[in-house]
């Protein structure tokens, strides 16, 4: 009798731990980058910029909040305490695409000005440039 009670307590306890882990995983999950998500489309930075410049609301419908891959050359790299911003810009264009990387998601020694890169990220819209965040490097 005593054994079954202990057995029941053990099962409930075990279940509780599993539940906490599931809860942590599903609801409290942090996500530093969109690297694990599938990109909906791939586009050159200059083409993406042109789409936003010519018709912003149409481009918003097409790209806002979507995971996309953008390619182009690195024009500038800046950083603050937590984010590295890599600026992809075609030399002929006035503006470009700003890609925000969480510092833990990028190895700065591997990126150099003028390099061609492919970046996966979530498109958050267009201000002076198109903005991508939660970025990760693509091979």
């Amino acid at each position, binding site marked *: 009798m005593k054994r079954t009670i202990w057995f029941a307590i053990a099962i409930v306890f075990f279940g509780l731990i599993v539940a906490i882990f599931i809860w942590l995983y*599903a*609801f*409290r*999950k*942090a*996500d530093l980058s969109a690297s694990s998500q599938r990109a909906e489309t791939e586009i050159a930075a200059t083409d993406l910029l042109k789409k936003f410049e010519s018709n912003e609301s149409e481009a*918003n419908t097409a790209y*806002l*909040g979507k995971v996309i891959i953008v390619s182009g050359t690195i024009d500038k790299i*800046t950083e*603050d305490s*937590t*984010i590295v*911003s890599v*600026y992809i810009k075609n030399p002929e264009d006035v503006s470009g695409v*700003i890609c*925000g990387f969480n510092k833990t998601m990028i190895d700065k020694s591997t990126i150099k000005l003028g390099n061609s890169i492919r970046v996966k990220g*979530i498109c*958050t*819209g*267009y*201000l*002076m*440039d198109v*903005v991508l*965040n*939660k970025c990760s490097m693509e091979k």
Partner: protein
Amino acid sequence: MKTKFLFLPLFLITQVAFAQKHIAKTGYIWFYSYTPMEVIEAHNHQVVSILDISTGDIIFNLLVKSFEFKVALMQEHFNENYIESTKFPKSTFKGKITNLDKIDFKKDGTYPADVTGDLTIHGVTKSITTSGTIEIAGGAITAKAKFKIVPKDYGIQIPQLVENKIAKEMDITVDIPYAAN
């Protein structure tokens, strides 16, 4: 040839006028909501700002979807249920530094700055006045401010279910380093 020379002073004037404008493309704004039940913060590192030091005009522009939360699900709820970022993708502030005469942009130091202007969040525009600082260090300008906003003022509905998890007033912190021209 003559016309070229005629345009030269005009060209120089526009150059000078342009140098008065300082631009930031990766400015930082974050908000903080505290209740005993839940602490929420979200960070936006892609704020665009233009500061005209000759007139004191200051503009902030940000993409609402650029706010990053620690918890992914919170970010989803924020975007879809509260701030409706697909409908209102941008938030802006257009204002003026009202005590411009007290700020010497040529001399290093931290100057208090009074700012007043129109803040648009969730499609609702309200006039706000706050004070911040302008820091000058080696010619580089950084604008900083801290103020509170009430989400309800901007038509942001918080369901009763989560009412005690979301603060009635949010702390907004602004930290914009302008690119040195």
